[in-house]
Structure formats: C-alpha cells, structure tokens
C-alpha cells in the first residue's frame, strides 16, 4: 500500500498545464469546451462511443482522452455506457453493413436533442474501405452527422477540437 501512495505522490499531477505551447492549446481547448458545456448543458456532456466498423485505431485514441494527460472529464465531458444516457454519439469506422441496424437503433435510443460526431477518416468519408458489398462507407450515409473529426486516427487533441467545434456550433 505504501508503495502505491509513494508512486502516486512522486508521479504528481501530469495533467497538462500552461507550460509547453502544445499543452497550452490543450488547456485552452478544454476551458472553451467547459465554458460552452456549462452554458448549454448545465456543466456536463455525456458521450456514447459507437464503433460501427472501425479497425480499432480510433478507439485507442479515444481511450487516450481519459488518460491523466488529457483527462477530458475535468471539462465536463464523460463517456457513458448506454445511448439512453447520452447527448452525443461518437461514431468511428466506415459503417459496416452488419452494423448498420445496430447503429440506427443506437441513434434511435439516444434522446433528443442529440448530436453525432463522426471520428476518423473512415467515419468521415469511408477512408481506406469506402463503400462496398460489406461497407456503407461514411457515417453520414446512415445517420445525420453534426461534426466530423478527420485523421487516421485523429489524435486526442484533434478529438477535443472536434468536440469543441460541435458544441460551439449553433444547433
């Protein structure tokens, strides 16, 4: 137990501060996100992530949003286990035809008002997989999309920027 406390104390807080230019950007982004969330969503926005056919690359970077460097929850953004609890669907991948109904049902299960963010090149435009017998291509071919975050995969910073873009846009 002592080892755990020692490691926690010596690690300190690594969450990005105002030091390096890159970190400043992150902090700035976060503060803006928080300002809009406070105004429009009473301090919190709930995201349900849906992998609709991704290669798992985007998921790794979305996971990183919760690591202690980005710690996106401090800005009031958190991931939830059910679409019924969500304000935002964060969808990755080209939509595989086998996931089409599942995505539609997840969309229907999300209460209004709701927003959809298509994360990654595949979700944005079909990416490397495009449209085929097995793939519907971009997420917008299946459900309405409010914001797009390109990248293969998008970096955690790009994802944060995308979320900010979404919540600052007039809906």
């Amino acid at each position, binding site marked *: 137990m002592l080892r755990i406390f020692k490691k926690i104390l010596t690690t300190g807080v690594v969450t990005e501060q105002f030091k390096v230019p890159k970190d400043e950007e992150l902090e700035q982004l976060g503060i803006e996100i928080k300002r809009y969330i406070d105004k429009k969503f009473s301090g919190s926005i709930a995201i349900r992530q*849906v992998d609709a056919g991704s290669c798992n690359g985007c998921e790794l970077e979305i996971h990183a949003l919760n690591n202690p460097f980005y710690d996106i929850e401090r800005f009031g953004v958190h991931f939830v286990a059910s679409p019924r609890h969500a304000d935002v669907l964060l969808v990755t991948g080209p939509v595989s035809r086998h996931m089409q109904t599942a995505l539609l049902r997840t969309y229907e299960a999300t209460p209004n008002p709701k927003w959809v963010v298509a994360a990654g090149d595949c979700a944005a435009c079909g990416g490397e997989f495009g449209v085929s017998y097995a793939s519907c291509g971009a997420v917008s071919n299946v459900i309405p999309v409010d914001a797009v975050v390109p990248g293969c995969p998008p970096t955690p910073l790009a994802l944060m920027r995308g979320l900010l873009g979404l919540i600052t846009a007039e809906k």
Partner: protein
Amino acid sequence: MSSSNWTADFLSRLSTDITVTQIDISSVTLWQIESHAWQQFAELAVQQNLRWAAGWAEHIEHRFFINTCFEKQGEYLLLRTIIDASNPELPSQATVYPAANRSERHTQDMFGIKFVGHPDDRRWTRHQAWIEKNYPLRKDFPVQGTPVGITPPDMHYPFIKSHGAGTYEIPVGPVHAGIIEPGHFRFQAVGELILNLEERLGYVHKGIEKIAEGREPESLARLAGRVSGDTTVGHCWAACMAMEQAAGVIIPPRAALIRGILAERERVANHMGDIGAICNDVAFVFAQMQFSRLRELWQRTNATVFGHRLLMDKIIPGGVVCDLSDESCALIKKEITELRKELTEVILALDLNSSLEDRLYTAGFLSEEIAAAFGTVGYVGRASGQDKDVRRDAPYAPYDQVTVKVTLETQGDIASRLWVRYKEIRTALRLIENFIDRLVAGELRAEWQTPVAGSEGLGIVEGWRGEIISYIRFDADNNIARFYPRDPSQLNWPALEKLVLNNIVPDFPVCNKSLNGSYSGNDL
C-alpha cells in the same frame, strides 16, 4: 531452433494413395494433394504434432485453390488442393483440428465451398449483408454487391440453447458498454456462474479480402495496416514480407532493423495499455492511470521520432519510410532507461497487492491441453505452456541477428497472461536497444520489382498478439490477386469461450481483456 527436417519423415509416413506434388514458393514448402485426401492428411498431421496455423481459399478461373498452413518446430508447410468450381466440396479438417473450425466456416460463407463432415456448418462471417448462395470472394461477385437500403439485423442465427430450472441467457452486444469494438456474446448462466459462452462475431466485416484485389503493393500495405489498427505495424510487415517474397525483393539491413524497432514499440504500447486495462476491470484504477500515462508518453515519442502515434504506414513494400537520427536513437534509449525504472516501481505495487491477487489468480483458466487443441498463439498460448514465438522459431530479419528470450508460463490464468506480457515488455525494451546498437548506415528501401503474374508469398511475423500469417498472390501488372491476413485473434477467440467457463459473469470483462482478441482482425 533449427529445423529438424520432419517434413522428410512425414512424407515417408503418408500412405501411398496420397500423391504429393512438391512445389517451391519462396521460403515455404508447398505440398499439393488430391482433395479426397484432405482430411486424411490432417489426421496424420495431428498424430505428428503439426499445429494447424491458417486456412484460406482462392478462386482462379474455374477452380478453387484451398490452402492450409501447418507448423512444427518453426518450419511451415503449405498444403494445397485444387477442386473444380462446379462441385465445390472437400472433406473437413475441422473434425481433426478444432482450430480449423471457424476458418472453414469463413471459407464456406465467402466462397461457397462445402466442407463435408464439418461439426458446425452454421454461417459465420455472413450475417445479412449479402444473401445465401451469394459468395463475395468468387470472382464473379461484384465488389459493390447488391445491398439493400438498410441491411436487416441477423435475427435468426441459431444460437445454442440451454434448458432447465434456473438457467438463463444474457445477450451482450454488438454495441458494448465501453469504448470497444462490436461483437455479440451469448451467455448461459445459473446465478452468477457462466455455464456456456457463445461468440457471434462478424459485425465489423468490411470486405478487406475483396477490396484488396486489384490494388498495387503500396495501396495493399496501407490496407494491411488497417486490418487491425492496434497491430498496424505487425500486419503491414507481414503483408510487405509476403509481397517482397513474391517479387524477390530483399529489404536493406537498416530497413529491417527499423522494422524491428517499430514492431517492438507497438508491442510495448499495447502490452502497457492492456495491463492497465486488466487492472481497471477489477477496479484497481491506480494501475490503469499509471500504465495509460506510460503508454501516452511512449506514443508521444512515436509521434516525435516516427511522425505517427500508432506508427501507421511506416512500413512499405521494399523497406520503410522513416529513419532514425542519432538524436532519435539517444532519445529512445533515454526513454527506455526511464521506463524501466517506472515499470519496476509500478509493478512492485501490483505484485504486492492482495486484492489484485485475489481477482487475477486462478480466474480465466485455460489449460495447456485446450490451448494446444485450439492452436492458441501469442501471450495467451505462452501463458498456457505453448512454447511458440516466430521471432525465435522461424526468425526473419532483423530477429535472425539476436537471441529472443521467450517467456513461458503454465499456470494459464489471467495473472499468468499479465505476467507474460509484463516480461515481454522487458524483452522488447532490450530488443529495441539491441537493434539501435546494430543500426548501420544504408538504404531504407530496396527498389521494387514487378513480380511475375501468379507469384505467391507468405509473410509470417510475430505481432504483439502473436503469430500473423499473411498470404499474397500477384496478378499481372503489379496488381494483387489475393490477400489473406490471418490475425492471431482468429485462433485465440475460441479459447475465450473455454476460459470463461465456471467463472462468474462479472468477471467476463477481465477475462476478455486478458485475451484481448481483435474483432476487426477476425472479421476482415
């Protein structure tokens, strides 16, 4: 491990009614036999302790080529039979090798080849995106298919049922509660105890094999790098190795060393992320925070040195597109020294934690017998006594210059898989240092040569999940005729159905994470 020439001995044991034609394709021995002996060959192979490693088919004009890849003592054997497309049938090998089960079902769905005597001939990869009696990998099937507006859900898949007082079913997925790939799990349980688990995958089938056809080598490498995003280096390397074999291209030594560094960096990143996630699944958040922090630092170095956090598209046919300066080498070495120190601190805290021990030891037990029967590979196999590692057993450049220490355990539980992965991080760190020390000045890319139409190659590498086998055949004009990547997950997923038995339902996430199969790499 030196090859013991078991192939000659094996040939002499084959009964006289099996005619073997030996063909040499690149570095792998290829034996062609008649289709009626397909199962008979497998029976002898299992007696001789050959491991079933991969199976795939190919449509060429009016015939189907069906292939199985076996391995023993690091030597790979490609077995092939050719059947007429008008009557596509041959005896199943799944009766002999459980590992062949889903692979044959995939081939059945994609080519319409019937495996006679198959113990479970339900559809596997096909849900409802294309109709029965349509086969996407036949050459007359258009890549666009004939999809309907909304693909219906796969309502009527015949799951195994349970009956009796107190048994109930829990359907889970395809959309899961976490940030994770989609798949369906059907549990039968009594109280909290899991009686049976049935996996239903195929949700992220993206037609990778079909859309690979007609691509040029560089485009194929990009696609291979997205078979499973967490294994982008591994799959890209295997596919490039196969293409290079087919084209007779030898990569420069510097490129091989850099590939080795990329692959080991991918291994370290994934192992760190997963060790944290395993601990998180038993609510030990300290480890999750520490390991996700270390992983983030590691990925940032990837971005600084190689220009991509996950190292995508750094390997290309003929070599690599990234170089390492002296400063970068120094940076990586410094990072490794610091990481070792941190790992020691964190892992001691894990090791001495009784609540973690309580949850991870004996949970999710996979016996050596089951691991062997299913041909389980990678850290899942190595935690259950399967002493296999391509880097040591069938070394390819740059692993042929170094000694790879393979971690082996026989305990077979979640703790064992966690420790194997921890030790593999330590080995990978040493390998990276070793490869950096061996770096010689030189080219990063060999000149590409258009292969003769019909050229084949088989790339076999040890990805972070385990052995990856990638098959390539070229058409004329540098175009790909067939690409088949066998992700380690295809062999490891069935082991999950076994290792969760008699565990409690709430322990399923941690059992699943300890194996961490790729859905995308499985569904293709």
